[in-house]
């Protein structure tokens, strides 16, 4: 709906009839299981309902599986005409395995034993001779999809989504999914799904043959009946798919898959895709062997550093989500400034369902922001025209800033100029609602300065977004010593509300991410001055695992902004090291600002930098020279108490700058590599290249 969504009274009154969870269990009968309930309907179909107590999402853990085993035993004794498995949770079917059971896994044999037991249970489900069907609404991921695949049929309710995200945790499916998926649908499509970890919407799942029907909730019973009576057409594997299932064909395809995977996830850092490809290549034609090999491969991957670190990243994400807390009462956001960041922030908030007014001194930048928003929505909306239309209706161009009087939150995203921001606040503050919050997206001006002149400085908070807002999940929530704690909580809650991850930080120069990134970027420029090729520098960082090298990153951020931040940090923190090189200042003066002007350090064509071929391979020391100052700064931040703990710093770096996730974060990497070793290396670099490498005092207490 467009703005001020008023929940329809009539629909609300009928809400409890919306989902059909099957027959109610008999009066006075309590379920023998904690997570499952079982009941029979008039057609003698058994309904098994999964409802984990005390949580809003079902996950697959030991208790759920063991109770399922017991439930299956009950059914084998008293056979129903069919078995229907549904989730009682509003959000979806099953979100996947209970990831916490994977943390700290170090013994492959132990994992193999657990997975073997789990396989026994799903095999028992598959072996039932009666029709079994998974009725899926909402998300069906990972282990949840594997349960669904062990059923004879899958019925998708409209709007449901299916996926195997295990590869994002450095794993692949381990509960029979690799076997069952490649045998149910086109093996190539199956492998694609598992290698990318992408979720498929219900319609796509039907087209693939992954589900047998897509129905609205009101036709679920009829679809179940049709499936039980054998009237649902089952997708058949195409001839092409059968051919590909042969050994020699798999070998050819596997080679291609490896080449593709290498582009996104180099083998050294990400073993999981290659393990999956090998698993299929070797055993694709033999389900029994493949299942056994899947368990071994899964167990091995679980113990790799990459998987453990990616699981750590999963929990870092959950930790930041937890910091968001309760969503505040926000219906209307006003954004000041329709530039790259302001327009992006406004577009994202509108996509998340908020009414947003976007103001600027001129209407032309607002028009540009609307265009960029429409492009973003087309992409993330997967061509759902009504969703796109509604989001664009909620994103209201507001050249006269009428929205301020209605806003629950005002986000200032104007250029980084203190006087300008003061003038803006002076005009805005008197118009704001009594309970409304004023936030600034500033990256380089301390909030202590920004709040000067405000009638109510206690409601000014920093909300520092990263570029592009739709892809970078981090929002640094910046506090100052006059900030009302309720407003700080509001800001964190708001970040969670718009599906971003809040990292609380103090109003100190560079906050967390910019402060830590700057020495990394600076060192690259120093090495550039020493004559190292920019392609080589970027390659060194990419080999370490950064998604983008420092030269390309500087161009992407913008030379003007990079220069601004580094000068500000040097000045405000009295950092050692050379000033920014003159040639950089010249480039900024000449408006060669990087990607946004088509040329900076690289020449940019079609949104990509033109990199020369044949640049020399990086020296082993190069990565350390760039990465270790970043880590040194993180240690300083930890010592200064800039963030709550090391995990928040690591999380901020991963979600705000893409720091190699498979390394678990800069501070975690330092621990894994060895604190003493890193500290010694820094001292060595300091001797060689200068004081800027000197290990921070915080290393003493960093363990």
């Amino acid at each position, binding site marked *: *709906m*467009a*703005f*001020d*969504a*008023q929940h*329809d*009274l009539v*629909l609300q009154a009928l809400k409890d009839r919306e989902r059909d969870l099957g027959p109610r269990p008999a009066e006075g009968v309590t379920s023998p299981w904690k997570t499952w309930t079982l009941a029979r309907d008039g057609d003698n179909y058994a309904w098994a309902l999964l409802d984990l107590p005390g949580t809003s999402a079902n996950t697959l853990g030991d208790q759920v599986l063991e109770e399922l085993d017991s439930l299956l035993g009950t059914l084998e004794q008293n056979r129903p005409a069919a078995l229907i498995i549904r989730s009682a949770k509003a959000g979806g079917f099953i979100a996947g395995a209970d990831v916490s059971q994977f943390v700290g896994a170090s013994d492959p044999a132990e994992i193999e034993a657990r997975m073997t037991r789990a396989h026994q249970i799903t095999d028992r489900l598959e072996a039932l001779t009666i029709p079994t069907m998974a009725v899926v609404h909402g998300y069906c991921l990972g282990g949840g999809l594997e349960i669904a695949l062990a059923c004879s049929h899958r019925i998708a309710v409209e709007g449901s989504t299916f996926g195997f995200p295990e590869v994002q945790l450095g794993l692949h499916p381990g509960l029979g999914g690799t076997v069952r998926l490649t045998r149910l649908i086109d093996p190539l499509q199956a492998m694609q799904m598992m290698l990318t970890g992408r979720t498929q919407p219900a319609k796509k799942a039907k087209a693939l043959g992954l589900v047998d029907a897509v129905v609205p909730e009101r036709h679920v019973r009829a679809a179940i009946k049709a499936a039980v009576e054998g009237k649902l057409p089952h997708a058949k594997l195409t001839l092409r798919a059968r051919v590909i299932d042969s050994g020699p064909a798999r070998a050819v395809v596997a080679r291609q898959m490896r080449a593709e995977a290498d582009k996104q996830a180099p083998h050294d850092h990400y073993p999981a895709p290659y393990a999956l490809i090998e698993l299929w290549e070797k055993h694709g034609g033999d389900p029994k062997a493949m299942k056994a090999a899947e368990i071994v491969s899964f167990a091995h991957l679980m113990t790799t550093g990459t998987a453990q670190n990616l699981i750590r990243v999963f929990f870092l994400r959950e930790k930041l989500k937890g910091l968001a807390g309760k969503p505040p009462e926000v219906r209307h956001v006003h954004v000041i400034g329709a530039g790259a960041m302001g327009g992006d922030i406004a577009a994202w908030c509108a996509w998340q369902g908020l*009414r947003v*007014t976007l103001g600027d001194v001129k*209407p*032309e930048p*607002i*028009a*540009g922001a*609307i*265009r*960029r928003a*429409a492009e973003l929505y087309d992409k993330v909306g997967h061509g759902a025209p009504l969703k796109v*239309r*509604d989001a*664009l*209706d909620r994103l*209201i*161009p*507001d*050249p*006269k800033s*009428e*929205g301020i009087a*209605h806003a629950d939150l005002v986000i200032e995203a104007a250029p980084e100029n203190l006087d300008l921001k003061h003038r803006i606040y002076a005009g805005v503050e008197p118009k704001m609602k009594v309970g409304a919050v004023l936030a600034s997206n500033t990256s380089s001006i301390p909030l202590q300065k920004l709040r000067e002149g405000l009638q109510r400085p206690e409601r000014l908070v920093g909300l520092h977004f990263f570029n592009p807002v739709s892809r970078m999940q981090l929002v640094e929530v910046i506090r100052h010593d006059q900030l009302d704690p309720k407003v700080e909580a509001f800001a964190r809650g708001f970040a969670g509300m718009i599906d971003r991850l809040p990292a609380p930080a103090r109003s100190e120069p560079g906050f967390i991410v910019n402060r830590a990134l700057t020495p990394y970027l600076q060192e690259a420029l120093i090495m550039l001055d020493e004559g190292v090729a920019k392609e080589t520098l970027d390659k060194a960082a990419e080999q370490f695992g950064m998604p983008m090298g420092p030269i390309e990153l500087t161009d992407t951020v913008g030379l003007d902004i990079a220069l601004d931040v580094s000068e500000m940090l040097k000045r405000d923190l009295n950092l050692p090291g050379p000033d920014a090189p003159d040639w950089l200042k010249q480039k900024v003066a000449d408006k060669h600002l990087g990607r946004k002007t088509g040329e900076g350090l690289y020449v940019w064509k079609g949104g990509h930098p033109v990199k020369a071929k044949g640049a020399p391979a990086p020296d082993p020391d190069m990565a350390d020279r760039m990465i270790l100052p970043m880590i040194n700064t993180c240690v300083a931040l930890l010592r200064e108490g800039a963030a709550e703990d090391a995990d928040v710093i690591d999380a901020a770096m991963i979600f705000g700058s893409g720091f190699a996730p498979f390394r678990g974060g800069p501070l975690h990497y330092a621990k894994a590599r060895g604190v003493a070793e890193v500290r010694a290396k820094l001292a060595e670099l300091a001797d060689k290249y200068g004081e800027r490498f000197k290990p921070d005092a915080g290393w003493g207490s960093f363990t």
Partner: protein
Amino acid sequence: MAAPTPASGGRPVYIVDGARTPFLKAKSGPGPFTPVDLAVQCGRPLLLRQPFAATAFDQVILGCVNVIADEQNPARVAALRLGCGTAMTAFTVQINCGSGMQSIDTAYRYIREGTSDLILAGGAEALSYAPLVLKQDAVEFLAALNGAKSPLDRVKAAAAFRPDMLQPVVGLERGLTDPITDLMMGQTAELTGFLFGVTREQADAYAVESHLRLAKAQQEGWLAGEVEPAFARDGTLHDHDDGVRPDSAVDKLAKLKPVFERPYGKVTAGNSSQITDGASWVILASEEAVKKHGLTPKAVIVDSDWAALDPSIMGLGPVLCSSAVLKRNGLGVSDVELWELNEAFAAQVLSCLAAFEDEAFGRKVLGLGGAAGTIDRARLNIDGGAIALGHPVGASGNRIVLHLVNGLHRLGLKRGIATECIGGGQGGAMLIEAV
């Protein structure tokens, strides 16, 4: 000046605020906004500057002639997209060119009788979306083919095909032709122009004046607050009525050939209204609503009238209904300080002015003792009209009321009439006083 006596009892009805999109000339193919898109573009900023929520209206009424298939009952679609809530009743009205005024009139009557207190009444039209229409026999052919079940039936159905079925008809052309007399709208202007001795030169001179007045109004910023910029998905900013030609001149217009009746006609593309997309909204309120929400009304609707006459001379409609509303309120032409008379065609406007000044017409048709009176050209369409602005059919009636109110305020005047001719042989008029 005599004080007006409203036509019948009933509560006063106030015009509180209003806004419209820039009017955009139709080019080749559908424009950037559908009718509802246009209504949303000007509705959003209008509602944003009100002290009440969009859900506070009692109903929403929208005039729209060329409703597109994806937007059936555009009033309701617009109301939902503007956030008026699922409980908002909304309906669409259609009386050809009068639709945008009919929505105001209907709202006026609901409020006056006490059923509603706050109504959003508008008009929207996207003539650039006017479809290509299949001829009737082509439609029947396709239906038969679609319904044929057996292969034999299909062959039989297919045999009925004739090549000229492939020729679609331009929907717009059919829409602008009167079904009773088969005259295009422009032809009725040729007729009334003939009956009242309007020359080609006079029509061209009037047209130039329309362009120059609009250009001046744009330059001086007199349309600020009335015209709200529209923002297209492709990033284009539409911030002004783009049909205007600030450099319009009689020698340029003189070169144009007649467009409806060649070779002797006097009505050209240059002295006719333009084919245009646009939308406009007006907020109407009772005294109670004004008090409840702390509103500042701009005008009060004193009275309205609708008249009908032969379709072949539809352009004279305004004379009848304006005259009726003046008579009923004990007023004469000279008592009106400001006029908005929709410029369907220059010749049509000039015919109306001549009819007001015509002694025989005044006696025989208007039931007056003689001529109705002379309208001061300096008080008529002061900021230009549909010739320069364009005539989005369902929106124009709404725009002229909105602009009349704004014009009265700008010039510090009190009493005005907004009136327009209506294809099919009708006319609508509203008598309005600034407050």
